């Protein structure tokens, strides 16, 4: 497994069990485009331990969402392997719960019915699924909104419904693709608090795809930094900040150091991405 761990400036032994629940090995994916084959990701390898919060961060176009889709089983054709608890992923897997970047609540269902959805698919009796759904609705702080429709909620609240719906299926791994991308910074920080609280309460193994450095450092145990296309693992940074954490951590010196360190890695990749986009635009390839 080609994992590139580096020593951090604040070394502290990990408290998490060493056994990985998700293993990604030599992942590669190529797309056919009108301009020829495009390698989105190449030789990506990492492992996620049980109960860990791992963020994958990189510049736009580095293949983060491709990694998300492959792990989630939505892109079945790829090179390399992805295993969950030793079982290879060849399509959507019951152990993986996905939270998408776009708003994904069903507008025709109430909050309660949205969260009940995976339980309905699993064949749970109505009374049981309502009880379970209400538990997860309370977990995301939406008690009292059970009978509201998504159109009556704010963007942040709708995303919380999506998270509750995914958690209701009790996945082994929670996979989130920039779930707060469309929200303002304050809401994002507060929702990050909520996600952390839930993750810590449930010891939920979580893989977050993001381009937001602050968010990654606030939430994660480790951060995997990707290069620009084709996306490869540049570095894995261990985040040794105290737990339990809240959004107040963003004002600490250690937090700032981690953000600066990761920006140092990302800046080069982001600049490369920007220059390549400009070159494409000039040559008329869009």
């Amino acid at each position, binding site marked *: 497994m080609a994992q590139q761990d580096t020593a951090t400036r604040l070394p502290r032994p990990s408290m998490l069990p060493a056994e990985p629940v998700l293993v990604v090995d030599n992942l590669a994916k190529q797309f056919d485009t009108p301009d020829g084959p495009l390698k989105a990701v190449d030789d990506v390898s990492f492992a996620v331990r049980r109960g860990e919060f791992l963020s994958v961060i990189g510049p736009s176009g580095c293949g983060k969402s491709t990694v998300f889709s492959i792990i989630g*089983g939505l892109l079945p054709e790829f090179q390399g392997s992805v295993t969950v608890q030793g079982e290879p992923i060849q399509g959507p897997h019951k152990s993986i719960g996905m939270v998408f970047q776009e708003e*994904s609540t069903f*507008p025709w269902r109430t909050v309660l019915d949205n969260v009940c959805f995976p339980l309905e698919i699993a064949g749970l009796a109505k009374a049981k699924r309502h009880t379970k759904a209400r538990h997860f609705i309370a977990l995301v702080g939406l008690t009292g909104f059970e009978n509201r429709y998504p159109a009556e909620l704010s963007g942040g609240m709708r995303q919380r419904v999506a998270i509750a719906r995914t958690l209701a299926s009790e996945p082994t791994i929670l996979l989130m693709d920039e779930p707060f991308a469309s929200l303002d910074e304050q809401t994002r920080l507060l929702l990050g608090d909520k996600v952390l609280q839930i993750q810590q309460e449930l010891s939920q193994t979580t893989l977050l795809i993001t381009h937001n450095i602050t968010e990654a450092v606030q939430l994660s145990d480790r951060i995997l930094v990707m290069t620009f296309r084709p996306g490869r693992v540049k570095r894995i940074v261990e985040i040794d900040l105290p737990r339990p954490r809240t959004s107040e951590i963003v004002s600490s010196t250690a937090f700032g150091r981690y953000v600066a360190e990761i920006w140092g890695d990302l800046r080069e990749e982001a600049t490369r991405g920007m220059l390549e986009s400009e070159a494409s635009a000039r040559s008329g390839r869009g």
Partner: protein
Amino acid sequence: MFGFATLVAATCVVEGMLRIGILNRYIVPLPSEVMLSFPRIVIEEKILERFLTTFMECLYAMLLVSVIGILTGILLYRFTALRAATETWVAAAASAPIVLAYPLFLVVFGRSMTTIVMIGFIAGLPPVILKTLEGLAGTRRVLVDVGRSLKLGSWQMFAKILLPAALPTVFVGLRLGLIFCLINIVGVEFLINYGGLGQVINDRAERYDLAGTYAAIGFVILTSVLFFVVTERIERWLRPQT
């Protein structure tokens, strides 16, 4: 209230323009005369019976349009080859003046309610097919991905995600189909002098009873309003979030 007040105001303006002579009374009757002719029309033409005839023709046609139109739209969504082969023709049929083919329908079905219902059905079908197809094809990708991530089967994906997501657009199609249906039904009744309100309009027009003609048209509008109200109620029942 504002809408009703606007209608009353517009009616008063037309009345004024007719009395002054800006509009020709031989083409457009006085609105006050039209109002006064309503009781006469109701009694002389047994308007309730005629209204019910047109209403029932429209109901039968819309039931056929709804079932066959939605099912056809689903089939075209499901089988892309079928869609590629027929979608253009369905779209062309939507703008074709089906009512002008009434002699053909007369030959096949005779001078009967069946002819009227069939013309209404054929005319109302294309928008329902096209809008059902549009609604299903336009389901947001992320909702489909949610279904895929939960390993939904084809039927579950259709029943629990695609169809509910498509319903708003399907109802747009049903309303359009209703408009096409009613226009053609009343038109055919007028042309073949048979059936409900369309025949009343024909009778009154041939007798140069302009006020009576417009009064009969008023009942056609009433039929349309009733159908729209029913469609809206059904949509609210199926989509309580609206």
